């Protein structure tokens, strides 16, 4: 993972991507027990070509030149399949803007805040997102009032209430 992050940081230094934030299971693992995941989710701003189309070609070309080959929807970098995902909505923009700066074996990187990870799970709403939401709630690592503000800001309050009802979750508030 250390080398993977070093390569991604070099992509920023070389101007291939402007910046990034780690999301998904790897970021969630920062806050609670490790999750069995197969890839690293990297959120970034996609380059817009002269014709106005969003393109991943510069990113793929850069990595291929350095021997990192695409595999399914990921690119394997130093042993870790990395999925490059575009920042495409206001919630992801906010998650990127308010990312937490950390170090992994002295390599600087940034991950999403727990409230944003949870809000994205509410927004995406797949069974595995609900399962991970329950993990977050059980771990009691998130200020639910802060989460509810994020959810309200992005029009997700109703989906959150439906999730709580569906899974019979009672949130303890101070």
């Amino acid at each position, binding site marked *: *993972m250390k080398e993977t992050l070093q390569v991604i940081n070099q992509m920023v230094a070389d101007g291939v991507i402007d910046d990034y934030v780690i999301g998904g299971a*790897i970021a969630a*693992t*920062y*806050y*609670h*027990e*490790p*999750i*069995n*995941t*197969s890839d690293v989710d990297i959120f970034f701003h996609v380059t817009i070509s002269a014709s106005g189309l969003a393109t991943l070609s510069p990113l793929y070309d850069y990595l291929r030149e350095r021997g990192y080959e695409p595999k399914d929807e990921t690119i394997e970098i130093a042993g870790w399949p990395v999925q490059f995902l575009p920042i495409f909505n206001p919630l992801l923009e906010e998650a990127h803007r308010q990312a937490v700066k*950390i170090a*992994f*074996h002295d390599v600087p990187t940034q991950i999403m805040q727990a409230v944003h990870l949870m809000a994205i799970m509410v927004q995406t709403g797949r069974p595995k997102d609900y399962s991970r939401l329950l993990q977050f709630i059980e*771990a009691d*690592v998130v200020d639910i009032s802060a989460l509810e503000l994020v959810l309200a800001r992005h029009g997700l309050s109703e989906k959150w209430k439906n999730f709580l009802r569906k899974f019979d979750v009672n949130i303890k508030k101070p």
Partner: protein
Amino acid sequence: MTDPYTLPPEVAEILARHADYRRRLARLSFEEKIAIIERMRVLKTWRKQSEQSHVITPADNSKH
């Protein structure tokens, strides 16, 4: 209304120990947690490969 089901003490103890184990995992450093995930990935790959290479024989069936 019926009483809620009460778990047998030995099952309740296993669940409590499991919850404690998960809390301890959550308190590890990020580096330690990623090392655990890396080990999980190795095991997953090994399991997939061994499943593919293993041919079920009558001897396997007789084990059950």
